[in-house]
């Protein structure tokens, strides 16, 4: 790949992911529906995870495409390992993103159960209606 092309694609990806993050933040903050907030939350975490993967990306000498961090010859020689170091991507961001995906999935599962419970109790997942119901209950309680 040409160096300028590689930089253009890399910068475009950064801009796309930042805009994705902004859109999902808007969804979390401004949409009244709890389900849409959940969807926006998944887009938010996926954008940030993709960003972490992008930080771990590298290009080889001469802007060539890299390879996955997997030893393909068993047993490997020292030469093979040196070649892998020269061409493989960073495995650490991928491992950390795997952890982050599991954690965000756990949070998502819990929030989905919570939203479902709210729906069973109150019959709505609209944050405005829920606030209104709470205010009414407080007035009736006095």
């Amino acid at each position: 790949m040409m160096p300028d092309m590689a930089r253009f694609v890399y910068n475009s990806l950064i801009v796309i992911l930042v805009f994705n993050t902004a859109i999902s933040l808007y969804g979390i903050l401004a949409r009244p529906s709890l389900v849409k907030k959940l969807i926006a939350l998944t887009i938010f975490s996926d954008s940030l995870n993709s960003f972490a993967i992008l930080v771990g990306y590298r290009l080889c000498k001469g802007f060539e495409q890299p390879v996955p961090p997997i030893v393909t010859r068993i047993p490997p020689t020292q030469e093979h390992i040196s070649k892998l170091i020269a061409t493989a991507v960073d495995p650490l961001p991928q491992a950390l993103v795997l952890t982050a995906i599991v954690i965000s999935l756990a949070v998502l599962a819990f929030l989905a159960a919570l939203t479902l419970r709210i729906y069973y109790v109150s019959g709505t997942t609209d944050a405005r209606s829920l606030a209104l119901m709470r205010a009414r209950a407080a007035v009736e309680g006095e």
Partner: protein
Amino acid sequence: MSAYRALILVSMVVFALALSYALTYGILRLEVPLTLRDLAKLYISTTFNPLKRELSAMTPEGVTAIVWDYRGTDTFFEIVVFYGAIIGSVALLGAVYRYPPGPGLSLIAKTVTRIVATMILVVGAAIALHGHLTPGGGFQGGATLAVSITIALVTFSLGALMLRGLTYGGMVALRSLGLIGIVLTVFMVVIASLTAGITAYVFQNQPKPGVPIGMAYSVDGIVFSGTVWFLNVLDAIAVAAGFALLFIVLIGGGVEGERE
């Protein structure tokens, strides 16, 4: 209300423009790197290296080596968080004991699901069993297995699958079995070292400097990377059962059921 939304909209646009400028041309500028970081060089040079036997994780797949060997404790507590969330969901929605079988979807959907769900089961098992050699691992394999269970839950209805053994209690037992297996695997080398009269590390896989005891990494030339293979398989079982439990509770929880 609309002023509040407009404020959020404007602040998000400013946030996106400012952060993209900072990351591409500004002070936080990210360049596409042409060399690896030193830490990544360390990981790749020791992930499967018989020449550095005492430092190597002996796992050909670099990411799985980090997940289950270098940063094993991190992954262990990630699993704790995952099961904590599932236990929280079950506590919110209530256990599902027995459920009447529903009609399910049409015969076409059921026949297609029989074929597709079986194929997904095979793919998920392959991802989990080859986690130390190819991209993937215990969590990915378990999530794929859970996809097949979820498709079957939607197509055949929860009650019909409960009659065939996909029960709440069964999934809790399977999940607990996977977790107990993971804990036993974590302490396997420690228990072996106590009989040999030395002390090993928790989560130890291969022999380390000062602790010349560890799991074998291959049998007859077939690489299985010591504890990594066991942890992958047990994690796949636990994750698949955890997801199945979650979907059983999401579909059938909160509805009055009959106690067993």
